[in-house]
């Protein structure tokens, strides 16, 4: 069947009702889902073939509370539903996804959508959770009152969307009868709930009792700090045996290839470039997975919007909004989805401020650099009888990023004339026990992303750097390391005077350049550069002991400070240009981040040099 003849279906509904989970279930996609509002900020498209062979094109739209859009992501939903979205035909059918545990909120939008004059189907999602809580929904009555087919779905179950697929495979339902334009939608929702839904009083009791602690202004903040602290401790404590295993594997591989191949460029490429470089980054996979294990657990449980609520006062004081929390939190994985998630922020000034400070959140690409330097220079010892010193330093680096982001946001607030503040209106989802399978899938995907990145762009950049660090080859009789004679070596020596005041040697200067493409490349670049710098037989030796031996503590601390602020990777700058619609914002972002990085490194190096 041709695409033109396909049934065009749009999934619409309030944020966090499970549209994307349902979209993934219907189309077999793997779009990100989480237990908080605002995960989807763009329209996504997928296809499914119904049992009869009918082709259905499914659009997953950002969540919206109303067709009166207040933020850019809501505007996408409104425009698609109204047929005003450029290059997008109006859907043939709206599937209104509602959270069956929270119909009082979600039905209001359904009534508003009825006025669009499009055939509609209501998908009662999370109906298993509703049944567990004792919420009884008379589906037949709801169907009769709304004038549209109502199907029950459990998007996270294997066959949870079966009834919806069957509904999509039938003829289009008739247009639902819309309420008058001036109708009181809230009153109508109350009437519908009275007719079709029975909610026991104890439904929200568990959530309320947990929230009394979690949202407490003192206990809640203490709990949040403890959680984050524990997370960073675990990153170092739990990962060590696994990292040792991976490191051992690559050492063995380096020795095996080194002894098998004759001396020459191919051996150098494989041992000094591929194994020392890409292998040196892959070692950090366990730490990245442990960090994401915690993030996934927090996402799934419904805790994250509570954290946003807790930090709202702090955020507003610094010139941001509580809504900035989710974009900033996403930036811990990567600044790019974080910057795009800022579309959920209505006020353009708040959105711009969030975009500009999002790069200060410590993205996962920085973790290999931090982990390398901490392991090489910070002794592994227990302090105060309980805490791992390396974990404490990592926590401090993440905290430095957060504090710097708040300080920069405060400076922007101070400079701008408009001092208005926007109240935070945020839906707090019910708590859920994280599904171990979902968490396992999330971790698997994260591992694959990292491995693909190492095997893709990182490996490619490492090979190019190996070439630049190996050619031109030195003339016969040259006594120094070959890399000194190479193009990369010359560039490193050439720019080193600029970085001398902050303690960077020429090897670090070389690594900074490919590090602009992707941060982790700095680690593989250092590994390759040091492997090629060696004039002895230990060329494939691990990077960690080499830098521990050759760098001063002041240099290591200075490089750590650099990477708290370091100018962003090129992809991040490109996204800033796109979201801010101009190069001036990119120039501001890159300029202030570079300035802060240099200043922080200068202070760190000079103070540390004076003290050590």
């Amino acid at each position, binding site marked *: 069947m041709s695409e033109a003849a396909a049934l065009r279906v749009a999934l619409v509904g309030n944020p966090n009702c499970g549209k994307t989970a349902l979209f993934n279930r219907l189309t077999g*996609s*793997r*779009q*990100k889902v989480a237990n908080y509002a605002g995960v989807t900020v*763009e*329209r*996504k*498209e*997928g296809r499914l073939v119904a049992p009869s062979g009918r082709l259905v094109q499914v659009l997953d739209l950002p969540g919206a509370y109303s067709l009166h859009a207040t933020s*850019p*992501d809501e*505007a*996408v939903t409104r425009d698609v539903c109204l047929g005003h979205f450029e*290059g997008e035909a109006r859907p043939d059918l709206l599937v209104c996804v509602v959270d069956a545990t929270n119909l009082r909120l979600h039905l209001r939008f359904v009534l508003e959508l009825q006025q669009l004059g499009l055939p509609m189907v209501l998908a009662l999602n999370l109906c298993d959770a509703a049944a567990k809580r004792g919420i009884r929904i008379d589906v037949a009555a709801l169907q009769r009152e709304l004038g549209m087919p109502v199907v029950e779905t459990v998007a996270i179950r294997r066959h949870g969307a079966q009834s919806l697929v069957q509904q999509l495979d039938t003829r289009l339902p008739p247009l639902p009868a819309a309420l008058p334009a001036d109708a009181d939608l809230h009153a109508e929702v109350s009437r519908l709930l009275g007719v079709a839904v029975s909610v026991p009083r104890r439904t929200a009791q568990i959530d309320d009792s947990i929230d009394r602690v979690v949202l407490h202004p003192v206990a809640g903040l203490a709990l949040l700090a403890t959680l984050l602290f524990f997370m960073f401790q675990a990153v170092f404590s739990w990962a060590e045996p696994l990292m040792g295993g991976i490191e051992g594997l690559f050492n063995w591989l380096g020795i095996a290839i080194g002894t098998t191949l*004759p001396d*020459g*460029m*191919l051996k150098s*490429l494989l041992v000094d470039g591929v194994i020392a470089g890409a292998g040196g980054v892959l070692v950090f996979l366990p730490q990245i997975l442990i960090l994401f294990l915690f993030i996934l657990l927090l996402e799934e449980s419904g805790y994250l919007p509570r954290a946003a609520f807790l930090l709202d006062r702090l955020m507003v004081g610094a010139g941001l909004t509580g809504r900035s929390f989710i974009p900033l939190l996403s930036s811990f*994985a*990567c600044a*790019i*989805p974080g910057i*795009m998630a800022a*579309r959920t922020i209505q006020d*353009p*000034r708040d*959105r*711009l401020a969030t*975009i500009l400070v999002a790069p200060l959140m410590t*993205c*996962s*690409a920085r973790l290999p650099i931090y982990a390398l330097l901490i392991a090489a220079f910070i002794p592994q010892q227990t302090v105060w009888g309980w805490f791992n010193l390396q974990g404490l330093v990592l926590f401090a680096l993440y905290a430095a990023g957060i504090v710097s982001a708040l300080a920069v946001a405060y400076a922007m607030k101070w400079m701008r004339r408009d001092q208005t503040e926007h109240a935070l209106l945020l839906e707090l989802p019910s708590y859920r026990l994280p599904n171990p399978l979902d968490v396992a899938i999330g971790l698997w*995907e994260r591992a694959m*992303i990292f491995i*693909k*990145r190492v095997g*893709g*762009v990182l*490996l*490619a*950049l490492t*090979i*190019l750097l190996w*070439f630049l660090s190996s050619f031109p080859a030195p003339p016969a009789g040259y006594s120094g390391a070959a890399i000194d004679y190479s193009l990369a070596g010359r560039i490193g020596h050439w720019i080193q005077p600029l970085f001398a005041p902050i303690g960077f040697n020429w090897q670090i200067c070389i690594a900074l350049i490919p590090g602009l*493409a992707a941060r982790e490349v700095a680690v593989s670049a250092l590994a390759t550069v040091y492997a090629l710098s060696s004039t002895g037989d230990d060329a494939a030796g691990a990077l960690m002991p080499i830098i521990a031996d050759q760098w001063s503590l002041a240099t290591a601390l200075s490089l750590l400070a650099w990477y708290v602020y370091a100018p962003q*990777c*090129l*992809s*991040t700058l*490109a*996204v800033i240009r*796109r*979201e*801010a*619609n*101009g190069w001036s914002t990119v120039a501001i972002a890159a300029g202030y981040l570079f300035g802060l990085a240099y200043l922080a490194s200068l202070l760190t190096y000079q103070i540390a040099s004076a003290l050590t």
Partner: protein
Amino acid sequence: MSAYGLVEFLVIGGALLLSAWSVLGQFAPRLRARLLSALTGQRPAATAKAAGCDTGCSSCNGCATTKPATEQPIRFVGRQS
């Protein structure tokens, strides 16, 4: 040149070309498309914009959008007096 030398040359040359091509595709997809069209003499096909979902960073959950990401740039609107 020995047989091993030839293999070495081909492997290293291939790896370098592939790496350069891959890096270009990641960070300058339009330039790569133009290069490809210049090499093949065909008109360049539409390419995804660099960075953002399904392009540059490859660190999110691998969005599989079938169209380039929609732009929603910041727009400041003056206050109505």
